[in-house]
């Protein structure tokens, strides 16, 4: 072998070693993904903004505002239909589907399609948002990089939320909310073990954003505060209005989308034109409805819009966004939710200020709270929405009314619209994502719900082998806990007893039988198979499978020798709703 070959081989081995240390590699990748995604999202924002300014400049003619979104929808509709079918819509349900169903696999083609189609779509004035697509772009880039590095399936999946957080941190300038959103919405688990990577990528993307665009928040918001404690009532009313508005928006969007989905498949490429034309016609009379609309949100936050304007904008934006999204345009509902919320908030605030000018803050404060309220009602991530507004305003004083309003909207939305929007959208596409209900049920099913009292199943250490076999409580199980007083001495298996009986040791005491075992099995508490009452039934099942037992002792966490009860395979199945007897009776 040549010297160069040796060096290459050595280098190859070193790289291979590095590649195998996936945890460390994931941290390095979190930084790189954060930087890359941050830069891509900044380019996405700048491109969209610049092109939009050219497409429908302020003060431009009315016909232009009708033609540009219609043409934009036509062109992007065809591209999405022909080349990038996975780049339709928001990007968040698609990302979740990729994460939970396709092992985190998102193609580079989808990333490209999302970037260019969304840029064109949003720049032409389609009333959708850029944050959802940014999330899919970020997740897609993370997935592409991880797969190119031949990382394991689990690591690819773990890096997808890392890309999401980076994208959201850069798109919305809210690094903490981005982390929470990735965990709360994308992963559906705030305690996910990828927290470190998600935080790293979010912080990196945020730094990149600041490096390129400077230290300017997305919205400039005045320092609002509670004028009078009675204002909480007005904020509660805002919560109700926000909740009802959110439900109306979600139901309209889902209904319209189902209608579009029911149309012949060959019309799919032209369907987005319906959205473009709708928003164009609205924009002819009210240009503020076009595009993402953050300039209008800022004006509402400054309390500088008339009551009738904000009320009209709230209603029209609900319709425009619902039609644009349902007809298959590329773009998200994250931004429109904030727009709708700001306008609803400003409307409620204007009325409150009109009625009680001395006891209420200006409409701007309500617009701010309204943003969080609509977000909590539509997207159903209350924690993210609170932190997001906190980060946008960088002001703590508005947080308490915000929390009250958010929770009311969240509660109303939950009651009146059973499925959260991203889950419902995925279901319309035939994708069944893990639901909150499923997660809650999983959390609810614990050993304590299925265990039975110890007295029903235990054997006394003073009993003989023959007695034990004859008694054999809970006949269907294959092992029993043996107790001395209240102390668990160990588990004795049926075949162990049968062996002892066959060997003529039927009179032997169980305590002697257990003592004859190898010392480790007797003394090591870890070796003693068990579960605790707060363990999940899934874990109990896993342990039963590993040990080959159909029963496990349930012991106290403070004293592993203190037997609290037993849990059997039959109990676990019954807790999951599997009725064994009936199955047997049916001959299944």
């Amino acid at each position, binding site marked *: 072998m040549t010297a160069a070959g040796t060096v290459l081989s050595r280098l190859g081995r070193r790289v291979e070693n590095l590649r195998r240390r996936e945890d460390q590699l994931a941290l390095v990748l979190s930084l790189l993904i954060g930087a890359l995604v941050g830069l891509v999202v900044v380019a996405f924002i700048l491109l969209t903004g*610049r092109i939009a300014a050219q497409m429908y400049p302020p003060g431009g003619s009315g016909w232009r505002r009708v033609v540009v979104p219609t043409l934009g929808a036509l062109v992007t509709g065809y591209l999405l239909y022909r080349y990038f079918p996975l780049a339709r819509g928001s990007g968040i349900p698609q990302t979740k589907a990729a994460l939970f169903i396709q092992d985190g696999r998102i193609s580079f083609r989808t990333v490209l399609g999302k970037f260019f189609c969304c840029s064109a779509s949003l720049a032409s004035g389609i009333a959708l948002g850029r944050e959802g697509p940014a999330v899919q772009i970020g997740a897609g880039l993370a997935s592409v990089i991880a797969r190119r590095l031949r990382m394991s399936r689990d690591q690819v999946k773990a890096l997808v939320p890392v890309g999401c957080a980076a994208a959201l941190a850069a798109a919305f300038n809210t690094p903490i909310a981005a982390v929470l959103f990735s965990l709360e919405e994308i992963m559906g688990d705030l305690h996910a073990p990828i927290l470190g990577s998600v935080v790293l990528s979010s912080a990196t993307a945020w730094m990149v954003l600041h490096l390129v665009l400077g230290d300017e928040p997305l919205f400039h918001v005045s320092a609002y505060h509670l004028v009078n404690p009675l204002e909480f009532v007005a904020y509660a009313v805002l919560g109700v209005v926000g909740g009802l508005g959110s439900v109306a928006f979600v139901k309209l969007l889902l209904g319209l989308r189902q209608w579009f989905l029911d149309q012949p498949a060959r019309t799919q490429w032209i369907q987005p034109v319906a959205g473009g034309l709708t928003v164009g016609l609205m924009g002819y009379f009210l240009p503020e409805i076009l595009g993402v609309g953050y300039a209008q949100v800022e004006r509402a936050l400054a309390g500088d819009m008339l009551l009738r304007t904000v009320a009209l904008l709230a209603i029209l934006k609900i319709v425009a966004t619902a039609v644009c999204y349902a007809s298959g345009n590329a773009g998200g509902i994250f931004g429109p939710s904030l727009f709708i919320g700001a306008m609803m908030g400003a409307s409620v605030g204007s009325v409150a200020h009109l009625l009680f000018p001395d006891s209420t803050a200006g409409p701007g404060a309500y617009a701010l709270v309204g943003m969080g309220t609509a977000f909590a009602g539509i997207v159903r991530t209350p924690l993210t929405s609170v932190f997001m507004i906190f980060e946008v305003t960088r002001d703590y004083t508005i947080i308490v009314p915000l929390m009250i309003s958010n929770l009311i909207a969240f509660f109303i939305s939950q009651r009146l619209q059973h499925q959260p929007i991203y889950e419902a959208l995925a279901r319309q596409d035939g994708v069944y994502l893990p639901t909150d209900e499923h997660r809650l049920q999983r959390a609810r099913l614990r050993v304590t719900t299925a265990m039975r009292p110890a007295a029903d199943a235990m054997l006394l250490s003073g009993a003989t082998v023959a007695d034990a076999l004859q008694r054999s409580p809970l006949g269907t199980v294959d092992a029993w806990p043996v107790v001395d007083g209240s102390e668990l001495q160990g588990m004795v298996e049926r075949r162990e007893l049968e062996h002892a009986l066959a060997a003529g040791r039927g009179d032997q005491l169980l305590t002697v039988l257990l003592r004859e075992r190898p010392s480790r099995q007797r003394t090591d508490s870890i070796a003693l198979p068990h579960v605790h009452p707060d363990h999940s039934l899934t874990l109990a099942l896993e342990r039963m499978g590993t040990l080959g037992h159909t029963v496990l002792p349930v012991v106290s966490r403070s004293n592993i020798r203190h037997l609290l009860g037993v849990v059997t395979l039959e109990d676990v199945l019954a807790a999951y709703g599997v009725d064994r007897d009936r199955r047997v009776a049916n001959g299944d």
Partner: protein
Amino acid sequence: MATDAVSRSGSLAASAGAFVGTFALVLAAIAALFAIDTVLARADRAASRAEGRRLFSEGMRLQAEGDMREALDRLRSAVAAERPNPVYQRGLAAALLAAGRPRDAQTLMAERLQRDPTDAEASLIMARALAREGRTRQAIGLYHRAIFGEWGDGERARRVGARFELLDLLAADHDQEQLLAELLPLQSEAPDDPATRKRIAHLFLAAGSPGRAGAMFRDLVRQDHRDADSYAGLGEAELQQGNYRAARRALTAGLALRPRDERIAARLALVDRVLALDPTQRGIGTSVQYGRSLVLLALTLTAVDSCVGAGRAPPHPALLDSAKASLARPLARGASLDGAVDAQIGLAVRVWQSRPHGCPTPEFARPAELLMGRLPTRIAPYILVCEE
């Protein structure tokens, strides 16, 4: 075996190459995107700046034309287009103030001052907004921040302008003590032109320092014998110091220069009434003094009665009865006229001082009011003796 090793090392190298290549690709993409983003951001900022400039000038034009609604819209858009630009922020705040929205102007300037606490112009707008809302104490603090802040071009003149605004506020608030404290440093800071000195002299009058005002007006009159305003100011300063004859001379000179000036004429008429009422004037006989002291007492009594008649409780009924009795009682034969004059003046002073707080002075009693401002010091020893 050697072939296997070579093939294995080759595959390892290829795998490592792909791994390193991906990293290199990502790093190259980061570098390229950073460059693209920087160019895009620069272009975006340039476009925003140009848009901001256009909107700001349009907003200022609309404001000058009186179309405040459209002006505010443009100015707000200008601020949104180039947020860190303090000129746009201050322009918008000033427009908001002019549109009668001091609270919004304050909010905007509070943000600006948070970013740059030394921005004198922002402090000044904030001070004006606070003053407009009647929050004088806070406004004074902001005026001070403006006076000692960073002004940039034309610093001295703008600083003096801010101090004058503060002085006007203090004068309107009748805070004579602070007004005087602010005025003293202004004497050395302000430009030495007659208009500014005249303004300062008037402010000294408002600050209750007629001596300083008189000295300044005298200087001004010396420099320009044909300045009616300075004569009027000097007359006022002399009047406040109780130099009625000197006040009359100055006001007469002023009226001669501007015969149709009703304000000077009114002040001269008042001085004449005071001169005709003053019982302590030199060069008049004792009987005239006595007569004037009776008129003075009668005037003060009537003024107090009018106040009581307006719903206020009589201050000291016994004192009023005693004064009325003194007016009704003829002078006892053989009594000292000098003593009677002093007694009447003393009684008039006590009646005047016993007026309920906040009692307005009727027009007819103005000369009495002016006299009462200085009589207590002249006759204080007598009053003390009486009270003992």
